[in-house]
């Protein structure tokens, strides 16, 4: 259960948003909308604990964040590719899991890459993949890292029509398994239901 109240953020002198509040229960998702520069990414970074809020309170399972438990339950995919160009998709997935203290077996990572349409690319260096394919490598982490709360910032960027549909399905599966998601996007999302927050 995620509960956010009275969140405020400013960049320099400019107030981006104030008194933002919402709550998410199991199976719910939030679509954060707003113009360019409205503070969507800032809100996401506050939410995951990468930057401190000016004011407000973020609680995860009734405990203040960021806590170790929150980090264990969280996966955050931002604007960055967050994959190593010199490594292969398989190595990227395995190393990312190892840093989280998870031993990922080859079959699970391969299955995740196949699901994301990267069959036959798993042993190429990420450097030679296209922008959309790099994005898919990153999204494969959604399948290899067990997390309850998905925070995805512009996750639909650079994806083709099939991948957008696939990511929609992944999110829907995650929600129906009792997960939660916070998404930002400018286009309508192929995920049913959901709350909306306009900044």
């Amino acid at each position, binding site marked *: 259960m995620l509960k956010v109240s009275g969140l405020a953020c400013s960049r320099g002198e400019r107030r981006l948003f104030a008194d933002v509040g919402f709550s998410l229960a199991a199976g719910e998702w939030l679509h954060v909308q707003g113009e360019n520069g409205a503070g969507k990414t800032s809100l996401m970074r506050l939410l*995951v*604990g*990468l*930057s*401190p809020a000016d004011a407000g309170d973020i609680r995860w399972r009734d405990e203040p964040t960021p806590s*170790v438990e929150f*980090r*264990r339950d*969280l996966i*955050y995919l*931002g*604007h*960055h*590719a*967050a*994959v*190593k*160009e*010199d*490594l292969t998709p398989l*190595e990227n997935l395995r*190393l*990312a899991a*190892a*840093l*989280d*203290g998870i031993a990922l077996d080859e079959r699970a990572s391969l299955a995740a890459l196949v699901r994301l349409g990267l069959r036959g690319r798993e042993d190429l*260096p990420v450097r030679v993949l296209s922008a959309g394919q790099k994005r898919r490598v990153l999204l494969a982490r959604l399948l290899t890292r067990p997390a309850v709360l998905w925070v995805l910032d512009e996750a639909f960027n650079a994806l083709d029509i099939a991948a957008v549909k696939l990511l929609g399905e992944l999110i829907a599966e995650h929600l129906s398994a009792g997960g939660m998601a916070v998404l930002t996007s400018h286009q309508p999302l192929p995920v049913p239901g959901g709350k909306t927050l306009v900044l």
Partner: protein
Amino acid sequence: MNALLATVRRDLLLALRRKSEVLTAVFFFVIVTSLFPLGIGPEPVLLKKIAPGILWVAALLATLLGLPRLFAADHVDGTLEQMALSSSPLGLLVAGKILAHWLLCGLPLVLLAPVLGLQFDLDASALGILTLALLLGTPLLSLIGAIGAALTLGVRGGGVLLALLVLPLYIPALIFGAGAVEAHIAGLGAGGHLSLLAAMLALAVFFAPWATTAALRIALE
């Protein structure tokens, strides 16, 4: 602990894919220390006298050469952000990165020093002390350097700033590291110098990863 080892393995694997970056620092060390005997000429007494200082200064500069890359690549591609959000403590991952940096940029210098010391007419026991002093000193250089690298992360022209920030902090390591070899050659015994180096290393092992982590969290904001 697993996360620390995983970080070390990851950084070693990445370095293996980009050998040139590691080799630059090592070749820099070899060339700089070889230039002095060539420039000064065959004067064994003088060379022996300046050897510890030159080898140590070259080691400082070679370590400095690899420092800007310590966190920069991970910062640019967003993997540092993922590390900060990992369920493993960031301090452990940072310690792993520093250890990997030492294995790549510090340990080769330690292993090469006895060979390069021969150019300066150092005898076997002096070479032994030099190697021992570098073995204690180079991890210290990596640990202190990591704080500087984290503080200058994302700063324009960070490389020069890093040198200005870190080099003064390297002075104690330089004094006691080079001093150990000089004291041994003068027949005074290197024990005191080496103990002080070890004490500084113990202090840095404890505090540097913590300070680096704090600096990284600020850089990520």
